[in-house]
Structures are given as C-alpha cells and as structure tokens.
C-alpha cells in the first residue's frame, strides 16, 4: 500500500478520531434524554468498547489466543462490588481497586502463559476462566455464590444526576480515555513490540524485544481494561452474578474484535457496537439469536477476515498506521535489485 497523495477529499474526510469524538458527544447529549432502555444500551456500549479495545490489545495486537477475558471482566466486577459491599468503600476507591485486582490476576496468568503457545494457551486460559467461575459460585462467604448480590449504586456528586446517568457518564468518559490511550499506545514502541511478538516471536526476540515483558504488558493491560469494564458493569447493573462472565460472554467479546477487525482500535469500537446492536436488535427474534450470532461470527471470519476495519482502511485517512512517515528522501537509483526471484 503506497502513500496516497494528499487530495481535497483526503483533507475533508473526517479522521477516525473526529468521527469517534463527535459520535461520543452525540451519545453524551442524546442518551440521557432518551428512555432508560436506550440509556442502558448506551452505557453497555461504552463498557463493551472498553472490553473490546482491551481484548484486541492482547489477541489482535499481541496474537495471544487467550480465553480469560470474561473471567477478568468478572474479577473486576466482583472486586469493585465486593469491596463496596463488604467494606463500604466508595466507588471512587473500589472501581480502580477492582481494575487493579484484575490486572494483577492478568499478570499472574501471563507468567505460565509465556511458556504456552497457540492452542495450549487457549486451553490453559479456558481452564482458568472455568476455575474463576467456580470460585464465584463456591466462595460463598465472600462472593455470595450463585445467587449473586446487589450493590448499592452511588449518588453522584452533581445534582440531578441519577445513578443511571451518572454511571453512563463515567463509562463514556472512561471509554473515550481508554480508547485514545490504546490508540496512542499501539503507535508507540510498546505497540510495535506487541505486533512484532504476534508476527514473529523469534525474530522479535532477536531484535531485543523481551517476550515475557511484552506479553505480560499485553496481558496486564488487557486485564486492566477488562477489570475496569467489570467495575463499570457492576456500577451500571447494581447487581453482580456469575452468569454475566461465562464463556458465552467470552465468545461475544471475541466476536466484537473479529467483526470490527483484529489489530485495530477503530475496529474494536465498531465491533463492540455491531455486536451490541445485533444482540439488542435480535432480542425478540424468537430464539434465533444464537443462530444469527453464530452466522455473524462465521461470516465475518470467512468473508471479511480483516473485519470492518479492513474496509475502512480504504478510506482516505483511515488506514491504521503506526508510524506517520516523514516524506522519504528522494530514492537513489537502485543500488540493489528491487525485484529478484529465484
């Protein structure tokens, strides 16, 4: 893909960041005025965006086919809600604490994960996810077991802000900040290291990229995103139960990044929206959601292996580049063959 010349169209075409911010601003203004169902969906969207962006960092950018994201989402939700319920701490404390707890667990699972590749990693993280669910169900003194538990939702400082609007505002803010942070990160040396690990572990290592550190960073970051999303979910629902963190949700999150585009931040955002739209749109579809969801997943992988982001790449200004190059110096008349085939 060669650099395109700057045209009028290129300059007028809104960049992803502007489209995203305008959409977010519209959401911020319209959602609280809409009915409480749409507000809820908008809130869920923000949470899904955080989840999808975080998962894409690990799966799309670093190439680690882990299946523990739903469990980490749950750890964030449980951590946030339980600190609130057991110790009465305010959300301003428990939300970051829940996210950190998820991060620590994420880092912990990255250590054995370093030795595991491909499907072995998949199984190990799958086992971890099932183990986590088991703990949610059985550690009843702490987690209240299968029945779940209610979390009092905070009154927000600003007057007139209901818990619904307040948690939506916070989720939206965090979704914006965390998406921008991820978009910035993948363009940095850390992001390149992650991509290098995905595209060739051995070569990456030979260039001085520390595999353990890079993978641990990806696991930890991804877990932090999942944990934050979990805390927001608890805040939004006012209710935490194990059903929300099972393998169906893992599949849901995978579907978001596949539909949106692996290794694409814009794709993560769009994928989260698309999957939520599908779930809500087909809610009343007499039991065919599963089929539609499965077909979407298969179809996306088969027909659009690069997801929606694959199409967007073609829009001027939307190609996801990690480095914006300075205009290259005039090429020398070829010193060495440009084309040579054996």
């Amino acid at each position, binding site marked *: 893909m060669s650099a395109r010349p700057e045209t009028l169209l290129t300059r007028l075409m*809104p960049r992803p960041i502007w*489209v995203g911010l*305008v*959409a977010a601003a*519209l*959401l911020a*203004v*319209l*959602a*609280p*005025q*809409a*009915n*409480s*169902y*749409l*507000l*809820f*969906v908008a809130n*869920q969207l923000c949470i899904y965006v955080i989840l999808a962006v975080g998962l894409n960092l690990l799966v799309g950018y670093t190439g680690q086919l882990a299946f523990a994201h739903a469990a980490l989402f749950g750890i964030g939700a449980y951590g946030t809600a339980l600190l609130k319920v057991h110790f009465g701490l305010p959300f301003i404390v428990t939300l970051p604490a829940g996210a950190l707890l998820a991060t620590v667990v994420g880092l912990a699972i990255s250590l054995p994960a370093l030795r595991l590749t491909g499907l072995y990693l998949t199984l190990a993280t799958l086992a971890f996810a099932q183990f986590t669910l088991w703990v949610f*169900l*059985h550690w009843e003194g702490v987690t209240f*077991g*299968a*029945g*779940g*538990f*209610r*979390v*009092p*939702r905070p*009154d927000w400082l600003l007057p*007139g802000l*209901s*818990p*619904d*609007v307040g948690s939506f505002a916070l989720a939206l803010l965090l979704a914006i900040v965390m998406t921008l942070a991820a978009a910035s990160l993948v363009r940095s040396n850390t992001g390149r290291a992650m991509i290098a690990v995905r595209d060739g572990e051995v070569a990456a290592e030979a260039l001085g990229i520390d595999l353990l550190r890079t993978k641990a960073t990806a696991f930890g970051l991804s877990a932090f995103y999942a944990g934050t999303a979990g805390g927001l*979910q608890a805040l*939004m*629902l*006012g*209710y*935490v*139960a*194990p*059903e*929300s963190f099972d393998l*169906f949700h893992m599949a849901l999150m995978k579907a978001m990044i596949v539909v949106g585009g692996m290794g694409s931040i814009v794709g993560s955002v769009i994928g989260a929206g698309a999957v939520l739209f599908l*779930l*809500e749109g*087909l*809610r*009343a*579809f*007499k*039991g065919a*959601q*599963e089929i539609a969801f499965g077909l979407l997943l298969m179809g996306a992988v088969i027909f659009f292996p690069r997801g929606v982001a694959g199409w967007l790449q073609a829009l001027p200004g939307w190609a996801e580049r990690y480095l914006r190059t300075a205009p290259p110096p005039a090429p020398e008349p070829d010193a060495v063959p440009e084309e040579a085939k054996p």
Partner: protein
Amino acid sequence: MPPAPRVAPPVNPHSAPAETEPMRRLSLLVSVAAAMLAAATLPARAQGAPGVTADSIRIGSFGPLTGPGYLYGRLVMNGVEAVFDRVNAQGGIHGRRLVLTREDDRCEPAAAIAATRKLIHQDQVFAIIGGGCSNAALAARGEIEQASVPTVIFAAVADGLTTPRAPTIVSTALTSGLEGVAQVAYAQQQGARRIAVVSMRDAWGRSRYTPLMEELKRRGITPVADEEVSPDANDATAQVLRLRQANADAVILLLYPKPGAVFLRDAAKFGYRPLVIGQSGIADPAAFEEQVGVPGATARFVTISQVRFTPESPEMAGWREAIQAKYPSDRLSVFNMFGIGSAQVLVEALRQAGPNPTREALMQALNGVTNLGTDTYGGPITCTPTDGRCNRTVVWIQKEPGGPIRIVGTTAVE
C-alpha cells in the same frame, strides 16, 4: 438482601423528542447514529394506558429464549401464547386482542435489565408476564418496581422475587421457599430420620438450597450429608458413596432431571435406595424414569409438580393440540403448562380490570385474584396485597416403575 434505595430518575418518559439539529456538515456515520437515537427517543402515543390501543393490549414477556435455560423462557412463553391465541379467537378482552412481545434475557442479569427496560420504555407494554431464571428475574425486579408495571412471574422461583413484597409483582410459580417447606414436611411425614441434601450450585439450585436449609434449621434438623452434583455431571458415584456412608434414609434432591437421573442411576448401581424427594424441576416422573434408564431405580422417588396433570393426561388434550398446531416440532411440556396457568391468571385479571384498563386497575385485579381455578396448576390461585406468592399448592406425584403416574397428595403450604 433488600434492594438498594434508588434515586428517582430525572428522565420523563414523555419528554419531548430531541430537537433535530442541522446535520449538514456531519459525516454520514454520525448522522445515521443520531437519526437512530432521535427516532428511538420519540415518545409513544400518549393516550390512555401504555400498551393499550382501541383494539389491542400489548403484554411483554422476558425470559431465556436462547441458552441452556430456554426451557424456562421460550417454552413457557409458548404456553402463554397458546392462551392468548385462544382468548383472541374468542374475541379478545373487552374487544381487544392480546399481543405478546417477547424479549430474550439468556438467563443473565444484565440482559434481563435491558429486556425489561426495553419492554417498559421502548415497547411500552401494558403489563409483563415473564421471568424464567432466578438471577435474571431478581435483577429485573428493580426495573419493574421502579416503573410500577403489573407483572406476573411465570417460572422463576426465587423467594426474593416476591419477598419482601414488591407492590406490582405477583408470582404464579411455586416459589422455592414453599417447595422447601413442603419437601421437609414430606420427609418427616414419611418418617425419615436421616435427611441428606443433594444440590446444584448454580443460581437455580441456590435459590432452592438456601430456603431449604433455613427450613431444615427451623425444624432443628441437621442434614447428615450435603453434596453437590453439577448440571452436566455424568457420574455421581462419589456422592452416592458418601450418602450411603452417612446412612441417609431420605434425600432431598435439588437437581435438574439430567444430574438427578445420573444420581439415581448411580445409587441404583450400589443398591442404595433411600426415599428421594424431588422438586418441580423434575416434574415429569414418566420422562424421568426413562432418563434414569435403570429398572426400579425410581421406585422410591417422589417429586413435586406445580401442575396437576402430566402432558399426556387426557385433560390436557386441548392444549396438547394447540401447542402442536402452533409449534409443530414441539410436544406439550410441563413448561408450556406453567405458561398456560399463569396466562390464565393474567387474562382473568385483565378481564376484571374492565373495558378501560389502567395499570392500577390491573394490579388491583391481580391482587384480588381469589381461588381462581386454572387448567393446569395444582390448586386454586389466590393473591393478596400482602402476599404475592399466589400458587401455594404442592402436588406430590410418583410413578411406580412400569405403572402410571399417581398423585400421592397435595400440600397447601401456609
């Protein structure tokens, strides 16, 4: 745990539509998103009660249509739909057709909240009949209370749905606490001295286990064994061995049919035959006998039915045909029968709410349902303003190996 106090939302369901802004310079994507949101915020026709038009009444239903719990959602709703069809065929309620809007909650709290909000605020239903899974329905309870929508719970059994009393929620399902009381009473009545509990630790199992343990404690009984079997288990040897060692003479079984069948099969394998007391999750002893598959293994198995017939009973012929006609690949099941019973209660209340129904009138009618007979439930249905547990009749059923299903007794729990 009591529900958290809530701050009333500033959102007015009849608020004006978002002002249409000039969108000339916004990109296509943004305008599409805005249009969607704006369209969605249009208020419903603000005439009369929500969901009621000149010729129809919209009733909402939430429950699992997909996922492992679909039995408690889709199949129950099919029963509801069958009743609605019959009512509509007979001219509807005061000339209005009943329309059922289904929303899937996949047995998940978050999805259930979204589903009820959608029903209430988006679909603008008049009343709700639904609730398949305990945790999902518990999560939805807050939304229903907040919006004061008359609601009949048709399958979820958690006590927390009706206790403490939510003003607009009644349940025609036999709540788990009632079944627990009945199970313990039955065991004692049969002279059991050493009672053991075998349960699943999922939300369904938990919603039964907790009140059961409380009831045992209240009666001063300590179970001699307390074992778990997972919903997908294919083996229960360890549990059976432990129960045998504890010499339990009665086992209260809080399991779905599959793990229940595995348990009884493995018990039979060791020739261990205590009195086994099931609950309404295993409501068809004939099917259960086949599922166990070992002759004689169910000889001392007795279970609770919420309904007084089996799907094969001659009394059910009409509904059997109705279900088969509407859903050709289905057979009438007890889950359909739950839906039939609860829909009949709702229909009666709607009738009593009069030709110009309001939610208040419907709620009053529901709370005033007294000794209402249905085609399926074990006993008459009675709701009161203080107690939303309208179905209190436990029907004990048993099937002698090779013989017919017998109703061995009914217990009306106070």
